[in-house]
């Protein structure tokens, strides 16, 4: 029960952090981190995925509402939420029986980096492709993806480092 509440608070926190702080960073004029996907990484693995997929959709949609982007965040967040288990099995070799004991913090850094980087790149690439919505400026899409992913990953590892120290 307390876990549900804490993830509810985390949900609100990442949405508000994203739309009121991170969306206004505009490093070099246009590069923003999209740290709200940290919610997808932190959400516990479960066998029943309906709830998780729905929450991921809601998370993306809430960011969409604030940034007037009409479903592109919902689409990309939902995609990585669905692909998450696949990458968990690829990078960590964890299967259904291991889900209750899985803890991202306890995994080796190299594997964790691979996992988080892959999901971030997939998310950002879909996001920027839809935001651009044409095949023109494709190099711009790729560049934006790389810059923003780098930014997001740096922030993600900083946040994880800061919060894991306290325990």
């Amino acid at each position, binding site marked *: 029960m307390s876990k549900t509440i804490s993830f509810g608070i985390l949900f609100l926190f990442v949405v508000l952090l994203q*739309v*009121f702080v991170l969306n206004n960073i*505009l490093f070099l*004029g*246009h590069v*923003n981190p999209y740290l709200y996907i940290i919610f997808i990484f932190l959400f516990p693995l479960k066998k029943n*995925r*309906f709830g998780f*997929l*729905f929450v991921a*959709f809601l998370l*993306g*949609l809430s960011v*969409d*509402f*604030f*940034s*007037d*982007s*009409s*479903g*592109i965040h*919902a*689409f990309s967040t*939902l*995609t990585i939420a*669905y692909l998450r288990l696949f990458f968990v099995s690829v990078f960590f070799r964890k299967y259904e029986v291991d889900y209750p004991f899985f803890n991202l913090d306890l995994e080796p850094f190299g594997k964790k980096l691979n996992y988080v980087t892959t999901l971030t790149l997939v998310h950002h690439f879909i996001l920027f492709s*839809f*935001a*651009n*919505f*044409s095949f*023109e*400026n494709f190099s711009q899409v790729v560049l934006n993806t790389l810059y923003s992913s780098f930014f997001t990953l740096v922030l993600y590892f900083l946040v994880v480092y800061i919060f894991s120290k306290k325990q």
Partner: protein
Amino acid sequence: MQQLIYFFRKFKYFLFFLLLQCIALTLIFTNLNFHKSKYVTSANAVTGSFYNYTFSISEYFSLKKTNHELLVENTLLRNRLEQKQKTTFLTDSTLIDTIKYFQKYTFSNARIINNNFTKAFNYLTLNKGIHDSIRKEMAVVNGKGIIGITETVSLNYTRVQSVLNKNSKLNARLKNSGYFGSLKWDGQDYRILQLTDIPRQAVVKIGDTIETDGKSTIFPEGILIGIVVGVDNNNAADNAIDVRLFNDMSSVGPVYIIKNLHKYEIKELENTINE
């Protein structure tokens, strides 16, 4: 039948995923249409009030600049008023007939509580809505030039399609010669817009002023847009001219919303079927 149930059992997560993806895709595609985009907007009560709250804090940081801009605009308008009075003095009598009173536009004011300019499809949110008699497809300008067109209106907030939106298409003309074309944005630089479909015989020089054309029912005639900074000499099909906006879209303060009182009359006339 059993096979079917087995299929649903096996792919239930994938099917649920596809269902949600379809909803997201529908939202994305309906948003491309100016007349249908109304579901996922920042002009609803929740996001609007959030933005209003943050704006009430952030507006203090730009008070000095906003004050200066308004002062400059006031000076300009006062000077123009002065010129107007001179000319009316010259005529020996002024006729004010209240029956023939002819007002075409009314102005109201609003503040921008959320501004985007870095994406390919940018929108702004205003702190006025239906309660302040804002409706769809009204012009949004400020003292320096055009900003956009109102798009989705809720009770207290309005979403504006910025001129920095790939869907945006406005009527604009060269101030000195009167040749008109349509003003679009290619999504690259937020300071530069493209004026396309100008006739080839039009002489365009760098530094020419671009203003709105009175041909649409949205913008009044003669509102400033920007100056020409680049002329395309490659004989491309659309004959695009680069226009630098007078407005700095990355920081816009108070805006005016213009309502065309004759809009419905004009639309009705244009839509009558030729018999």
